[in-house]
């Protein structure tokens, strides 16, 4: 993917760019809003990663200007603030996702991947597969190696969420936001406990592990 990182802090910017390059993306790094506007209009990017507070032209105005000019490239805001109000401001300005500083690289990487693929593929299957696991969305049944698994509604929702995003890491906060619709950072390991209960049913009785833990990031079911 081709990504544009707009971040005025050199340490953070370089780190993000290096991480994304190591994942095989092509990354352009600019340090102010005006350069970002020129860069984003001059060439096509898959995702924009924009710090909200920038010299010369702030992140909100930058994305608003791009949207006004018909540029619909998904944008991820990085912010120092992070209140509900700021989040709403960012999303109404045309941002697609929002990440509060400081963030773990894994969180950023997972969200960039999610943004890049959000728009085009809306999967309409009625069954989802991963290895020997089959999820029947119509009858709300899950079988693995032919054995039916009895899942709670929430466990079913988590598994469905991971299956629909095979190969992509889903972080704890992403799961909270999308499966529970909760934008709140819990102090306790609430998501982990749900995942471990799901694993007890989906993975423990079988030889291979489907739900992988990605250290420092989240969970993934491989394609």
């Amino acid at each position, binding site marked *: 993917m081709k990504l544009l990182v707009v971040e005025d*802090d050199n340490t953070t910017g370089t780190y993000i760019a290096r991480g994304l390059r190591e994942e095989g993306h092509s990354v352009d790094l600019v340090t102010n809003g005006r350069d970002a506007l020129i860069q984003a209009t001059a060439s096509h990017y898959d995702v924009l990663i924009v710090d909200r507070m920038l010299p010369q032209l702030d992140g909100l105005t930058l994305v608003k200007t791009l949207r006004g000019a018909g540029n619909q490239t998904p944008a991820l805001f990085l912010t120092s603030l992070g*209140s*509900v109000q700021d989040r709403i401001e960012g999303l109404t300005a045309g941002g697609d996702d929002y990440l509060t*500083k400081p963030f773990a690289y894994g969180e950023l990487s997972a969200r960039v991947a999610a943004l890049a693929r959000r728009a085009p593929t809306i999967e309409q299957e009625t069954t989802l597969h991963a290895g020997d696991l089959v999820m029947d969305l119509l009858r709300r049944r899950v079988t693995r190696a032919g054995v039916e698994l009895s899942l709670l509604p929430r466990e079913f929702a988590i598994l469905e969420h991971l299956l629909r995003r095979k190969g992509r890491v889903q972080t704890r906060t992403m799961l909270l936001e999308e499966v529970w619709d909760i934008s709140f950072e819990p*102090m306790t390991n*609430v998501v982990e*406990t749900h995942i471990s209960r799901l694993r007890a049913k989906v993975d423990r009785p079988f030889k291979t592990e489907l739900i992988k833990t990605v250290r*420092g990031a989240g969970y993934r079911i491989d394609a």
Partner: protein
Amino acid sequence: MTARLPAILRTTPIRLALVLVAVFSVVSLLSLGATYFITQRSFDQAIRADLTQDMAGFASAPGPRALSQLVEAESRVTDPARLVLSYLGPDLRHYGNAVVARDDEGYHIITDIPDSPQIEGDYMALTASLGGGQLTIARSLDEIAALREVFLRVLGLTLIPTILIALGSGLFIARRSAEHVTTIGRTLDTLTGGRLEARVRPAPNWPPDLATIGSRIDTMAAAQQAATAAIRQVSSDIAHDLKTPIQRVAVHLAELAERDTLDPPARQALDKANDELDGIVATFHALLQIAQIETGSPKAGFAPVDLATLAADFCELYEPAADDAGHVLTCENTAPIRVLGDRGLLGQILGNLIENALRHTPAGTDIRVAVGRDGPDVILSVTDSGPGVPEEERDLVLRRLYRMDRSRTSPGAGLGLNLVASIATLHGATVTLTDAAPGLRIALRFPPAPH
């Protein structure tokens, strides 16, 4: 109007009017009283002098016979109501226009006028032994009684209009300024409610003193608004200035973690550093959020939120974690109960209350989350059967950074309940901590959502 009257009677103009009336009454009473006293005394003296003179006139009669004839002659032309003449001669015959009789009650004047033989009213009498008999001359004091009546009437005529005018104008001024006072009060309420753009804006026809107060309040509100805007700017500047280095520390720690050469103690130290950084970030977030909630007014974004469903979602979210920690988390399910608010912030309340209960109670503790109604109000409560909070500390735990001594060893920055209190206030809800015997019950009382 009748309900507002007592309040108006306590206003300054009415009090002033009442004081004026009292002062004027006292002064009038004193001066009229003194005048009455002096006049009465001079009347008294004049009557006494007249009596002495009358007596001297009769004393000049040459003998008892002449005296009795003189008394008889005078009596014929004298009204006993004004002047009484009574002479008891040496022959024990009575001459005069009335008889002065005496009984247990005192002296009485008895006349030969039919139907009213006894004359009422006060008299001043002088008795002397003349010509071998006894002569009594009594002059009526009616004039002095009439004088008293005149003075009382004068007093009434001066006081009643004064009282009416003073009270009437006081009431008028009070009612007129009551409207302005109400305007000022409403503005102050709005300002206290956090909407700092409210102003009194006194009109040109306001009384000067109230207009001054009004414009001073406006000046104060403008200064407050500017200060709040500055604080908000400063806190967002601080946020930016501190978050950038915090972010850099996170970056450096992450880069360090990528190295394969780290030995186990170094990795342990790194994990500790990361945990501490998470703690710093959590505290920082909470402080910023409280500051923003307390200075901001996001009520514009409020919408009806089903608190019952939200509580059920949070119970379901925390249930496995509570179970792993040996707690029993239960949620009393009810039909949808809506309050007006911000779903994210209300969720934060639930999350903080449940985490607070999980963190500060030992394994085996029951934690109950309930949403219900009390009259029109909506009550959200989280009750635990843990050690509870001593009564004297219950208000303190809602304060920023307050931590009970025994919770110093457990994690958390002491901001959770303070954040709950801030969010509650923003929603017009009140927070109360009560003894659940055993344990602690934290209850939030929300006003009902408007339809």
